């Protein structure tokens, strides 16, 4: 069972996404801001990270850069979750080291496909 870290500050989004993913069979750990996200990621040994970009403390881009800079998470797949297709968000996310991105509101089938693709790549 793949283990996913969901970094998301909005409570409802966090609740929804985690429950829907759990129903699909993933084991979900949650973090509520960038700092917690980085901390949990370095120690948790996750298979994949879903990272909201606009986060308190440190934002998603900075968190991603930090994770890429340390060996523990250097290669962990990260999917950026951005708000409504803001121009440049996608590029900024890829630049920071994300492997893919998806826009909110989440289209679950689309996100699942991206998750599965990355998990397969790493398997």
């Amino acid at each position: 069972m793949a283990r996913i870290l969901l970094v998301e500050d909005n409570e409802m989004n966090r609740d929804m996404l985690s429950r829907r993913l759990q129903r699909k069979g993933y084991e979900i750990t949650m973090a509520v801001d960038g700092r917690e996200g980085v901390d949990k990621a370095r120690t948790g040994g996750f298979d994949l990270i879903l990272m909201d970009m606009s986060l308190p403390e440190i934002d998603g881009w900075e968190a991603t850069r930090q994770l890429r800079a340390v060996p523990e998470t250097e290669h962990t797949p990260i999917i950026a979750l951005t708000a409504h297709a803001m121009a440049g968000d996608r590029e900024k996310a890829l630049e920071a080291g994300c492997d893919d991105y998806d826009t909110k509101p989440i289209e679950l089938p689309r996100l699942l496909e991206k998750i599965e693709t990355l998990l397969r790549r790493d398997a």
Partner: protein
Amino acid sequence: MPHRSRTGPRTTSARSAAAHRQAALLRLSTAIAAAQDEEAIYRSVVNGLHDEALGYNFLGVFLLDSETGDRVLQASVGWPDVPTEWRVHRGEGLSEQAVQDGKLHYTPDVTRESKYLPSLASGSELDVPLRVNGRTIGVLVVESAEPNAFGDEDFEILQAATNQAGIAIARARLLEAERRRADEHKALLDTMADLSSELELSRVLQAVIERAVTLLGVTGGEVAIYEEETRELVVVASERIGKDSTGTRLKMGEGAMGTVARTLEPLIIPSYHEWLGQSAKYADVLVHSVMAAPLLIGRRLVGAIATVHSDPARVFNQEDLRLLNLFAPQAAVAIENARLYTAAQRQRQYFRELVRNSPVAIVTLNQVYRVVECNPAFESLFGYPQAEAVGRNLDELIATDATREEAEQYTREALDRPVHGIGRRKRKDGTMVDVEILGVPVIVDDERVGLMGLYHDISELLQARRDAEAANSAKSQFLASMSHELRTPLNAIIGYSEMLQEEVEELRQPQLQDDLTKINTAGRHLLELINDILDLSKIEAGKMQLHLETFPIEPMLEDVITTVRPLVMKNANHLEVRRADRLGTLRADLTKVRQMLLNLLSNACKFTDHGTITLSADRDDQHVVFTVRDSGIGMTAEQMERLFEAFAQADAATTSKYGGTGLGLVITKRFAHLMGGDVQVMSTPGKGSTFTIELPARGPDGDREPATD
């Protein structure tokens, strides 16, 4: 000399008499030589011969009238009853013979001659022809009351006197001709000087006609100018032709002036009342003969002149024509000059008025930037009356320390070429005013004489713009934050409804499925609407940023096709894709191009049922063109007109029937504009619509650098 011996004192010695005669002949000679004109010569001949020492008491000089052959008396002595300019008709009188053969004739006894026209009851007559350059021009008639009064000495004296008179007359005529030519030249010179010094058209025309009348010695005349627009002559000055003809209009070929205006040749009409070409407009004019000439500059007609004789005795001759031909070109040039001057004056007046009444402040400066003139708008804008501004350096007057450098820069540059800008200037009372500035060099005859500054008060305009911008920015800000605030709860609605849909499927409770779908669909529609509004407000606020990249077109199309496929299926439509072989790359905002295509395609799907939707992609060197064609309901011309206006979906019923925000096309079009392209539509109601997106293949103007990402 029998009669002399009779009249002279008998005691006078022959010697003394001879001396007196010599003295008298010398006086006669001197008088003839001193005479200034013909008339004086005739007078001196008769007066000199009528001398006590010579004793001729009855004598006269006749001149031959070359036309009639009459002899006309010029001067006489001792014929008290004879009128001046007495005419002796051809064939009459004793002196006829001398005129005919050019020889001296002596009639010792006049009573024996039938031809004698008595002035004395009896006596003798001597007729001496007056010859000039071998031609007889008249006769000197000397009479005595007594028969046989004249002898050889008389013949000699009188012959010598007429000879001398003949020489003097020849010289006088030469002088007269010279003087006449000199007078003519002077008259012409006067005319030229007068005419060229006068620039007011009406005065020039009056001077022209007065000169012509004087120069030609005619009764009167008139001048007309040629009006190119109507191709008519308009009489503008008239002098003694029997009526005031000013204002009369003549067509080409009408009347004397109309005729010369058409032929461009002068014309003499010896007998006007018999002339067939006369204009009815001159029926009431009593003129005898007319001479007219066109007024030309080169071969260009500027007007016509006509001169008239009302005296039947006067006829125009070649000499008059020659004078008119000398005169007409001067008159033409004078009229043309005056006309040009008047036109220039008018133009000047027009521009003066324009400047004076202009709401824009206008000031002219000389080469060292000092004020030469300013208009009332300048006075009121800056508070300086013209008198106070003239001579001052403009920038010292209306620039502050802060704007001085910029103002001087404008002034310097405007001396060479037009400059345009916006700035702040100072009024006399120290307050500031926002102005749009235009500086232009003033060039006269290729020479730079200064510059002109135009100041347009834009304080209100700028304030209005600032207000509008602030309001617009506030609106955009509000919309942006509202959209964001709305989206968060909306995401929850959409997300949870979706989650519930998944759950009821797992829990097998299909009765809830429908309601949950409705919640989800409504939520998504609302989200779409909010997103569109946000896009539009960003575009309107100028805050929509383009993220330009150069991307291959093919994969982007594939992506779009995959996304739109479920929508195509929904109304049982068929999607046809036609693309050019090598589509290559496009430099644009990938996300927005995708959004534009999805907008058009989803519209096509929405308004088409069981039909075909065609997506085509093509390119040339410069442009990439996407076409979305459907076989749907189409639109009327009226609907198409409002298509790209915000919130203008064909009608409200359409929205409720087909859904959508009605903003998609507006956004698509604005996106295209942002990227330097455009969106066009063609449609037939009931047949379908075709939308075309055209984008510059290498990105909008000003962005031509190759992609870096």
